[in-house]
């Protein structure tokens, strides 16, 4: 739309619009990620989290869809991935098909391993590395989340930051379950994080099939996403932005489903907006549609640059 500028910059990576495919959704193969960016219209892509060793993840069912019934979804995919070395190949394939920025997500079970895994994914030369410190559906396997206390969250960041070239920014992805997410974000930044992604799914939650009297998810519990997560995510982004005084970029993620949600998230303090579950509810073109809605709403409200929305609600 003439007069409306959606472009944004994430620590050197130029995004034609602020929408980012959130990690864990459709981020499996290079070809699929390229179609989300090229056809779907995402400004940037986050690949599905890779770990050093391949992981099968949980058996099915891995998703419970209650979007229509309750505005939420559960997932417990269990971090299935072919291993970081294969992921490097997928990202290389993405690069051949698509020029848009790529944020590579990694997952590890110890701080040291975060460093090792980040170093390996850095070979793919991503525009940023996101540390998934907050997946809520593997707790049985790995114990409590990294990002629930400042020391552990910061340690993982420190290991990763020291293992990858300075030219690649490192984002820490945090959980809305943290008692004080802003302090944890501050500890991560202190330890060298260049940006924060907030938030991962909440919970975990559970859904029980009443005719079989069993939890639906094979993992029983799974992370809560979708519109029900949005107010929690907006508050977390608002708190982090306030605490860090807008000094580091935040990728605001959690329940964003339309242009109004995206603007709201940016006003809370997000420089870019992650979209995950809505890529299911509205299809892969959700990114393009969210941008169109943003443009309409920005024009209506007299805003011309998406960059100027960031943190606007802080007054």
């Amino acid at each position, binding site marked *: 739309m003439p007069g409306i500028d959606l472009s944004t910059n994430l620590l050197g990576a130029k995004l034609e619009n602020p929408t980012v495919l959130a990690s864990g*959704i*459709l*981020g*499996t*193969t290079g*070809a*699929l990620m*390229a*179609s989300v960016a090229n056809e779907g219209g995402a400004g940037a892509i986050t690949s*599905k989290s890779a770990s050093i060793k*391949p*992981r*099968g*993840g949980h*058996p*099915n*069912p*891995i*998703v*419970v*869809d*209650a979007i229509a*019934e309750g505005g939420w*979804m559960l*997932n417990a*995919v269990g971090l*299935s*991935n*072919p*291993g970081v070395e*294969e992921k490097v190949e*997928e990202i290389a394939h993405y690069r051949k098909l698509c020029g848009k920025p790529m944020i590579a997500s990694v997952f590890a079970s110890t701080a040291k391993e975060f460093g090792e895994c980040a170093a390996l994914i850095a070979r793919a030369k991503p525009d940023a590395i996101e540390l998934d410190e907050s997946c809520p559906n593997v707790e049985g396997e790995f114990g409590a989340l990294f990002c629930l206390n400042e020391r552990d969250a910061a340690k993982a960041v420190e290991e990763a930051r020291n293992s990858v070239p300075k030219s690649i920014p490192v984002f820490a992805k945090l959980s809305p379950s943290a008692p004080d997410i802003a302090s944890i974000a501050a500890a991560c930044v202190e330890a060298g994080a260049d940006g924060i992604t907030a938030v991962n799914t909440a919970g975990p939650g559970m*859904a029980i*099939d*009443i*005719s*079989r009297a*069993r939890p*639906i998810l*094979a993992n029983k519990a799974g992370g809560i996403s979708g519109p029900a997560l949005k107010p929690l995510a907006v508050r977390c982004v608002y708190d982090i932005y306030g605490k860090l005084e807008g000094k580091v970029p935040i990728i605001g993620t959690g329940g964003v489903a339309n242009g109004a949600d995206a603007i709201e998230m940016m006003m809370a303090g997000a420089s870019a907006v992650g979209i995950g*579950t809505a*890529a*299911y509810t509205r*299809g*892969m073109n959700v990114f393009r549609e969210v941008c169109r809605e943003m443009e309409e709403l920005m024009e209506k409200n007299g805003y011309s640059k998406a960059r100027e929305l960031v943190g606007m609600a802080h007054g």
Partner: protein
Amino acid sequence: MRRWVGIMEAQERTRFGYATAKIAEVRQENYRVKTFVLDCGVEARPGQFAMVWIPGMDEKPMCIVNDDPLTFSVAKVGPFSSKLHGLGAGDKISFRAPLGNSFAIPTGAKKIILVGGGYGVAALHFLARVAKGKGVEPVMVVGARKRDDVIFEGDFAKLGVKTVVATDDGSGGVKGTAIDAVRQLLDAGEKFDCAYACGPEMMMHALAAVAQKEDMACQLSLERFMGCGIGICGKCDAGGGLVCQGGPVYNSRAAFKLEEFGICHRDTMGNKIRW
């Protein structure tokens, strides 16, 4: 009989898209394939699939062999299908259905050819029945490794569908692949308005090539490891397209655009496995 429409009518609707029914009948098709007939129906089209859930174990995609009563044919290939094979009449079965797109019969079509490999044959029976109902004449080609692997031959005969059986070792029907049998029919001057296939991917890939050469429309039912079944997890990508969303049925032109069609599929981790 209960009948569910879409994700089921309000009163019968189980939450979260899941429905539970009872098995009304189990038929042994051959040494490894059983057909499960449920005590309910869904509104589905040939080619669509269901995610069949065994609580506490796993959930797998199954072709809908009939919509009313809802019917699945299952080959015993691993722990999940073995568990299903252990179920009998009266046992509960849970599922989400229908999912995915379906085979389409072009307007004005008079004669079509259906090519099934192994247990893929079962899914095409539904299509043959719908085609017959529309006054379109289907010819069925059943490909199998050996005589004992041939299923549904009698069911196609009962429908009055001309059926050609081809086995790799010649123990049943003509010796050769399903594609050899298709070529023989075409060489004999038979013309088809559309070809349909369900079975091993390399068989479908070969059929798509034949169809392209003959300038014949062609629709294939692709199979990939499936996670969520609703287009969110990305596990069933076939190289730039999710099979649970864009498929499972692709016309041959669309299939050739998928980077991994005829080349590889992926396991639950996302590792490539060559066909």
